[in-house]
């Protein structure tokens, strides 16, 4: 069984359901990408996995445990961390404090993990004592991902990690995402740069109107005519 498995999720923010039956799997060490048109429920699906959206029907299993509707601060203890698309750093805290907050539930010495995060994002090293709110968008994204890496998760959920970044930073962040995956971390990513994301993904899901429309290896989706026409700009 997959490390993370969501079965037929239905639910939303309290009003009408946004998710009308989303199922997905992420295996250990895999990169999985969710694409789809605006309003397809991509981010909502990811939030539902992380207990941030009420799941009305369906189950989320992670590493043998049922985590459906579990509070996020308990899910992280199971080894799954989440990077929201926006407001994903503590602006008045320093870079170092942001990373420390990522390790809040660890009572042991986490200096080795801190060093690994700084190795992953060397530009943060010089900025460690600066407030995260003063950093550029790209560096902020590094802090956000670094914070989520502090618990050395088995799976990392990334909601549009390259949104609003300049092309230079988009490449850099996606490269780091690949590095993180090479350390054995499973990744589930919602991404606007669908071509780039599918090219690096092991598998992908296409969501439409809160439901699975297509799924398959990243390569296959890239070459699928319908997917290409709908989401990849022909």
């Amino acid at each position, binding site marked *: 069984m997959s490390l993370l498995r969501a079965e037929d999720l239905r639910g939303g923010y309290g009003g009408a359901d946004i998710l009308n039956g989303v199922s997905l799997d992420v295996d250990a060490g895999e990169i999985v990408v969710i694409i789809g048109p605006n309003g397809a429920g991509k981010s909502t699906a990811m939030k539902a996995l992380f207990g941030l959206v009420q799941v009305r029907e369906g189950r989320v299993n992670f590493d043998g445990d049922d985590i459906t509707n579990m509070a996020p*601060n308990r899910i*992280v203890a199971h080894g799954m961390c989440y990077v929201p698309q926006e*407001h994903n750093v*503590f602006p008045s805290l320093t870079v170092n404090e942001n990373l*420390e*907050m*990522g390790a809040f539930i660890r009572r042991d010495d986490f200096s080795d993990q801190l060093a690994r995060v700084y190795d992953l994002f060397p530009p943060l090293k010089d900025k460690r004592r600066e407030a995260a709110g003063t950093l550029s968008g790209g560096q902020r994204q590094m802090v956000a991902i670094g914070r989520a890496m502090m*618990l050395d998760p088995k799976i990392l959920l990334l909601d549009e990690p390259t949104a609003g970044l300049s092309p230079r930073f988009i490449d850099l962040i996606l490269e780091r995402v690949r590095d993180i995956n090479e350390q054995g971390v499973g990744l589930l990513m919602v991404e606007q740069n669908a071509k780039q994301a599918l090219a690096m993904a092991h598998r992908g899901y296409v969501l439409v109107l809160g439901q699975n429309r297509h799924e398959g290896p990243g390569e296959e989706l890239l070459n699928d005519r319908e997917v290409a026409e709908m989401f990849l700009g022909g």
Partner: protein
Amino acid sequence: MLDLVQLLIYGIVLGSILALGAIGVSLIFGILRFAHFAHGDLMTLGAYFAFTLTAGISLPMLPAFVLAVIATAAVSIGIDRSLYHRLRGNSPIILLISSVGVALMLRSLVQMIWGTDNQVYRSGVQASLEFAGLRIQPTQVMIVLGAFALMILLHLFLQRTRLGKAMRAMSDNADLARLSGIDTDRVIIWTWVIAGGLAAAAGIFLGMDTRLHPIMGWKLLLPVFAAAIFGGIGKPYGAVAGALVIGIAQELSTLVIEPSYKPAVAFALMVAMLIFRPTGLFRGKVL
């Protein structure tokens, strides 16, 4: 000139007391996102706790101070658990109104237990210290030193400890704090410990500087809020700066206007700040 310096000293004394209240108001706003109108009455309660411990069972002031601070912090947690906790997730207005209710309940409680008369910690006239023509009471020196010692402790707590950093993190972004694994409920409880404890300290200092009365804290609520807003609400350091500005401005204003109009000065400064720079000195949250 001498008058000016003398008033400046009184302003710093008042500012220190306001600061202890304003820090709590600011912390509560930062973490729980509502204006806590019962804060003045928590000050009153703390002052009366210390009164019972000193006048009632003849404890010296220092242990009475510590016990009253602890007791007020405990009451604050109790109020939060029994009331605010259940209302969380509702609009901030509902929490604000309920805190007005708490303010009235606390005040009535104080009146029922301790009566409506003025009380003092110590009767008799204290010899004031004099130097270079300036007068200052020994208790006023203690108030300023005590207040600044507490602020330094708070600073160390916020900057150095895991929980203090989590408190700042939650004030920055509560959702992100939760999904980082921070135990936000524990942060909330410690927010009440600090806010309630500092309110008690402010109340006791106010009682030492003047006298105890059931509406002593309520009357201080306006300048306390003015200080928190002036400094940038949600920013404890801003609250300290705002409190000193408001305290000094209130005292200096007596040079030109009737002393009974002092609270209007705090109000005017708050309104001016809200018009020209709504985030306050330290870029706090917008109300």
